[in-house]
C-alpha cells in the first residue's frame, strides 16, 4: 500500500496533498499497490469523499479532540500506531510546512530515514526511487530506501492532479490512543500574513522583484500583476529582502525558497547563482532587466532588455485585454 497523509487547513484538504495522492495512484498502478489516504484531526471524516475522488481506495481516519489543532508530536504519535498496524510499503507527504515538520518526526519514531522535497518518483524493480534537488537545485540526487516504509515528501505544484472521479471506497476509523502530555507542541493560533494569500511554493505563477525595483513602494506594481495573473504569488530576490523592501517569506533562492512554477517572471533580478539555483526548474522563465549582460537572461525563455517601469504598465493593459476576450 502507498499511504498518503492528507493535510487539512481551514476545513479542506490541501491541493498539494491531492497532488501527492494523484502521484501515489499513478505509481501504485504501476507497482500493483493501492493508494490510500490518512486524515488526522478532529471532525475530519467529512473530507474522506474528496480523497476517494483523487484515487484513494481506503481512507483511514484518526480522530481525536486532542488533535484538533496541529501538533507535530501529537500527530506523529497518532500516526505511529496506524503505520505499525497497517504497514504501508510507502508513506508520502506533501513537502509543505506541515509535511516537512511532521514527516521526519514520524520517520524517526518508525526508525526510518526520509527523502524530502522530491520532484520525481519512479518504480525501480518494485521499489520506490525518488529524485530531489540538492544545493537548492544546483544538482539533483536520486535515492532508494533500505527500510520500510519508504518515506518521502513531494514538492507542491510539481505532480499533476488526476482527473477526479466519483468513486467510493472504504472509510476506516481507527481509535487514537493519545494522552494530553503526548501533545507537546501545540499551535495556539494561526496568524495570517498581510496580503500574502498564496505562498511562492504553491503558486503556478511567480512574479519576482529584485534590486531593480529600486524601493519597497514599487513592489505594488508587481502586486498589481499578481492580481491579474491567475494563481500567482509575489517573489523577491535576496537583495530586495536584505534591503528590507519585502518580507523574507517571499525570497526565492538558496537561502530562501526553491520553486518550480509553470511561469517565473523576474523583474529587475540580475540572476545571482543562489537565485538561479532556486528557480531554474521553473517551466517557463521571463526576465525584464536593463542590463543585457544580466545572468538571468541565460536561463530566460523570453527576455526583455529594458526598463521594467516602462514595460509593466503596458504589459498590465495587454494582459487585461487578453483576459477579457
Amino acid at each position: 500500500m502507498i499511504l498518503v497523509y492528507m493535510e487539512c487547513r481551514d476545513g479542506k484538504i490541501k491541493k498539494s496533498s491531492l497532488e501527492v495522492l494523484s502521484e501515489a495512484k499513478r505509481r501504485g498502478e504501476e507497482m500493483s499497490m493501492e493508494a490510500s489516504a490518512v486524515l488526522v484531526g478532529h471532525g475530519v471524516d467529512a473530507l474522506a469523499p474528496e480523497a476517494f475522488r483523487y484515487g484513494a481506495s481506503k481512507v483511514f481516519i484518526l480522530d481525536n479532540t486532542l488533535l484538533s489543532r496541529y501538533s507535530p508530536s501529537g500527530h506523529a504519535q497518532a500516526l505511529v500506531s496506524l503505520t505499525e498496524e497497517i504497514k504501508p510499503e510507502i508513506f508520502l507527504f506533501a513537502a509543505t510546512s506541515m509535511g516537512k515538520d511532521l514527516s521526519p518526526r514520524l520517520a524517526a519514531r518508525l526508525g526510518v530515514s526520509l527523502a524530502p522535497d522530491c520532484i520525481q518518483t519512479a518504480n525501480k524493480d518494485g521499489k520506490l526511487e525518488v529524485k530531489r534537488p540538492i544545493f537548492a537545485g544546483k544538482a539533483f540526487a536520486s535515492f532508494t530506501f533500505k527500510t520500510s516504509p519508504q518515506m518521502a515528501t513531494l514538492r507542491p505544484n510539481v505532480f499533476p492532479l488526476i482527473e477526479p472521479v466519483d468513486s467510493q471506497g472504504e472509510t476506516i476509523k481507527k481509535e487514537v490512543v493519545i494522552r494530553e502530555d503526548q501533545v507537546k507542541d501545540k499551535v495556539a493560533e494561526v496568524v495570517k500574513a498581510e496580503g500574502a494569500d498564496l505562498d511562492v511554493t504553491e503558486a503556478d505563477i511567480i512574479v519576482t522583484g529584485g534590486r531593480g525595483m529600486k524601493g519597497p513602494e514599487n513592489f505594488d506594481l508587481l502586486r498589481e500583476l499578481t492580481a491579474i495573473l491567475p494563481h500567482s504569488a509575489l517573489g523577491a530576490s535576496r537583495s530586495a529582502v536584505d534591503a528590507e523592501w519585502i518580507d523574507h517569506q517571499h525570497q526565492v533562492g538558496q537561502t530562501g525558497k526553491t520553486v518550480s512554477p509553470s511561469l517565473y517572471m523576474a523583474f529587475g533580478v540580475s540572476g545571482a547563482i543562489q537565485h538561479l539555483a532556486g528557480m531554474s526548474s521553473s517551466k517557463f522563465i521571463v526576465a525584464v532587466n536593463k542590463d543585457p549582460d544580466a545572468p538571468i537572461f541565460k536561463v530566460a525563455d523570453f527576455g526583455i532588455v529594458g526598463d521594467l517601469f516602462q514595460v509593466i504598465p503596458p504589459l498590465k493593459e495587454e494582459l487585461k485585454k487578453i483576459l477579457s476576450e
Partner: protein
Amino acid sequence: MFVKRVPDTESKIKINHETNSINEEGLNFVLSPYDEYAVEEALQIKEAKGGQVTVFSVGSEETKTILKKCLAMGADEAVLINDDEGETFDGLRTAKIIAKVLKTKYTEFDLLLFGKQSVGADNAIVPSMVAAILDLPQVTVVTKLELEGNTGSAHREIEGAGEKVIFSLPAVISAQKGLNEPRYETLKGIMAAKRKEIPVVTLAELGFQSEELEVKIELTKMESPPAREAGKIIEDEPGEAAKKLAEFLRQDVKVI
C-alpha cells in the same frame, strides 16, 4: 546548538560521476547560513537570561574551523563529534548520533537550537528527528522565539501565514532567516577562540553497534540540472515589448 560545515552559497556545484558525489576541490566551506541564526539566538538568550552555549557539529576534523567561528561569535564551548563518513543524506543517522551524545555525555540542556536546514543536503529533517528520538517538543522554521521560565512560544512560517506554537522546555527549535541579525566575530573573540580547545567525541565512545549507523537511504544517482536552452531576448520599445511578452504568455506558456 548544532551546526554543519557546508560549501558556501556562491559555490558552483560540480559532480564527480564516478563516485556519485560533489567534487569538493576548490570549494570554500563555511558555517551553514541558517546555523548563524541559531548561534545568534543562543547568544542572545544567554545574554538575557544567563546559561551556557555549547556548539556541536557532526563531521570531520576540518569541521573545527566552523566551530572556531562559533566560539569567536561568543559560544562558551564547542564539541566536535567526529564522523568521517562525509555527506550521507541520511538525516536519521545524524539525528541518532546527536541524540546519543545528548543522552550519554551532555545530558543537561534547556534548549536545542538548529538551523532550519543545512545548505546543500537541504534535508531540513534532523531537528524534528532529534526531537522525536528524545521525546521533546519541536518547533521548526522559527522566526520569533520567546522563553518565559519553563515554557516558550515560537512563531513559525507556514504558507502565506504564521503559526504561534507553545511548548515547554527542554525543546528543539530550528531557526529561519528573520529570527535575528547574526553578529560578526570580533577580533577579541577570534583571539579567544584560538586559545580554546575543541574536545572530540568519537562514534566508538558513544557505543554504537556498527549496524546502527549504516546509511539507510541509498544514493543511486547524482546529476546536474538539465541545461536551459537560450530563449528569445528582445530589445523593442516598451509598448511593443510588452505586447510580444503578453502574446508569449498566451501562445507559448498558455497561462492566460
